[in-house]
């Protein structure tokens, strides 16, 4: 118990350090950008120097970089993400508004890709070298090679415009005032296409990893031993081969969370999903440095939390974990 606590404490300490690097790195990167929030704002309005200076002053952009970084970090200590210059609202509120959508999108895409990918991977890996294995292997590779944004476009044209089965974008029917189950169903329908566009590439990834992991597991002695004990094929495939091949997938789940957040930037833009990814794109376009910092910080925290959860799940799935971690 105390060991778990020390481990957790160490992790948290490490994460804090990581977040600090992220914040400072991003801040400096964005400060180096040509143009600031006022330049971005002025695009749509125009205005003379007086007005520009007024805005710069009002938005606190006339202070030095270091002052602003220090102010930002100081506010962060108080869990205050600051004020978005373009939304003129607390960044926390802006992000919290968008976060659920992104979580829903990513959660569903993860569930789809992991669930379906690993199942198909088991199906393919159960008979290495068989036709279905080859077929799924090549098929998944092809899917793996399809850019998500491109897939999104194609899906929209086919399913939303031509067939009109699904909505073309958004997260729910606008201003529909639906509630409860009806609203959930509405959101689910809206999620189908973006989740597919975002999740398919990872589906292919998990399928391939599962398949590769199983191919590797088949070569392990303990599988030969299990076969020598006359266990049923089903048992060998599921309880031994797939079970062991699952472990690297779980690790991947953590690593992919960051990638998926990145992928959602494009997908959210293609499908007009009001999530964090699109907010990030808007923040970049608007040079809303504190907002983008807030988003990156949020995604970093998200990634860290996901990885922590994945570690817990992994420890649960792999009994060796505690031993090796403490041993090394």
């Amino acid at each position: 118990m105390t060991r778990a606590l020390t481990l957790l404490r160490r992790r948290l300490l490490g994460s804090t350090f990581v977040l600090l690097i992220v914040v400072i790195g991003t801040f400096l990167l964005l400060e180096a950008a040509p143009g600031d929030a006022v330049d971005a704002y002025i695009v749509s309005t125009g205005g003379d120097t007086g007005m520009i200076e007024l805005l710069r002053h009002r938005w606190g952009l006339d202070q030095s970089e270091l002052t602003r970084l220090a102010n930002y970090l100081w506010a962060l200590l108080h869990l205050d993400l600051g004020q978005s210059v373009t939304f003129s609202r607390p960044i926390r509120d802006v992000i919290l508004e968008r976060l659920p959508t992104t979580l829903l999108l990513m959660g569903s895409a993860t569930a789809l890709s992991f669930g379906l990918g690993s199942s198909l991977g088991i199906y393919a890996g159960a008979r290495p070298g068989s036709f279905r294995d080859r077929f799924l292997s090549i098929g998944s590779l092809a899917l793996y090679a399809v850019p998500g944004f491109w897939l999104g476009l194609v899906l929209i044209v086919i399913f939303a415009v031509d067939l009109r089965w699904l909505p073309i974008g958004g997260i729910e029917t606008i201003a529909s005032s639906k509630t409860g189950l009806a609203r959930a169903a509405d959101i689910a329908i809206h999620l189908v296409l973006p989740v597919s566009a975002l999740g398919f590439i990872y589906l292919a990834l998990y399928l391939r990893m599962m398949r590769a992991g199983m191919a590797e597991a088949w070569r392990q002695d303990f599988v030969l031993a299990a076969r020598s004990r006359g266990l049923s094929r089903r048992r060998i495939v599921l309880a031994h081969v797939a079970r062991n091949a699952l472990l690297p997938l779980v690790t991947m789940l953590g690593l992919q969370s960051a990638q998926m957040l990145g992928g959602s930037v494009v997908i959210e833009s293609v499908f007009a999903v009001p999530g964090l990814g699109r907010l990030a794109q808007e923040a970049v376009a608007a040079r809303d440095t504190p907002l983008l910092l807030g988003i990156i910080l949020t995604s970093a925290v998200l990634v860290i939390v996901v990885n922590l959860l994945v570690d817990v799940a992994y420890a649960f799935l792999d009994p060796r974990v505690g031993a090796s971690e403490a041993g090394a």
Partner: protein
Amino acid sequence: QTPKKGGRLVVAADSEPRNLNPAIVASNGVFFISSKVVETLAEASFDGKDGLQPRLALSWEGAADGLSVTFKLRDGVKWHDGKPFTSADVAFSALQIWKPLQNLGRTVFKDLAAVDTPDELTAVFKFAKPTPFQLIRNALPALSSVVPKHVYETGKIEENPANNAPVGTGPFKFAEYKAGQYYRLQKNTDYWGKDEPWLDEIVYQVLPDRTSAAAALEAEEIQLAAFSAVPLADLDRISKVPGLKVITKGYEGLTYQLVVEINHRRKELADLKVRQAIAHAIDKDFVVKTVFLGYAATATGPVPKNDPQFYTADVPTYAFDVAKANALLDEAGYKKGPDGKRFSLKLLPAPYFNETKQFGDYLRQALAAIGIDAELVNNDSPAHIKAVYTDHAFDLAVGPPVFRGDPAISTTILVQSGIPDGVPFSNQGGYKNEDLDALIAKASETLDTAARTELYKEFQKKVAADLPLINVAEWSFISVARDTVGKIANNPRWAVSNWADTYLAG
């Protein structure tokens, strides 16, 4: 199709303005939404006197000395919160917002000294210096959004929550904004217009991706896409989709100009022959035909052809003539090198429109044909603004300035000298022509409408002759709507007007 009362109109919105107060931010993106909520003193009109139609003001009268303008206001108008609309609101808006805070009003109303309110329905604008009445009149549709004094008088105007949830007198009330999703406007049952508005609701669905508007129209998720939200290249196909119509009218008062901005600090470009060569190298017809697919007109000078007051065709023109362009460059002493190149340039197309970027691509090819090697630099908006208007880190830029009904509002600034660094959409190319500066100054003080108009014709000639920048084309936008949407495009600024009479057919 019969007009019907009620219904919800769903419209595509491609951006989410951060500030919805049209009195502060006079821009089409803001007007598109808030012109239905906050009204101006007058709106543009196809057939009204001086191209205007009364809104909150019933009449306007300029004094001969150019020192005052008198507005008679509409009676019985109520703000959305129920309070009566009076001349005090106009005075407050003009003095506290338009003059000090509004992006465009800061120039037009710079000499506004006071607004007298002899009674609740009369507002008299007093100017410290003679100001042409023509200019004020032309500025009314875009610059005169009136906001309620009682809402704005406490606290800082810039931080007023009404900037994000505007309160006005318009036919629709601001109901709700879901970031990233939609804006919703609701019928104002107390609207002064008789039997108006027709619609119950307007919803602006945020569709940031340019291709999605067409798809959404086809999928019947939206009923109207204005401001060319449907890509031009798709119009031909869309117009054949049953139930959809393509409307090219209704943007006459919102003309965008395609302009090649020139950095005169570059010694090659400071040479008129080179600028002329570039002008000759651009096939304007090709640009109109290919980049704008015909939905544009070739330009002759800094005032668009569709402007009824100021435009003149009597200016030097530059026919597409590669041989002549080459000859001019040779004459100027920039001979082709062994690789066929004369010199290299940095070309910055503005990123705001697909068309400006595409024209950038075309211009690069056109310049290559006359031995000028242009390197394209793509920036996002803030970087482009900074590079062109603050850092002057460009040789050529492609910009889309807007002609707002009067050259003095946002056009002369494009060529005038002495503008401080960092002012966007102004002359930042280092161009200086004393004659032209004098002409601009004179026109700004000329009260007589005819004389003033004449001066601006002179201005067009000079610009076309000396080419401080090259006007290539003028375009306005296209709306695509379902057949059921009625009363579309019935004024020159329709998309940014109040839509009180727009209806959905049953």
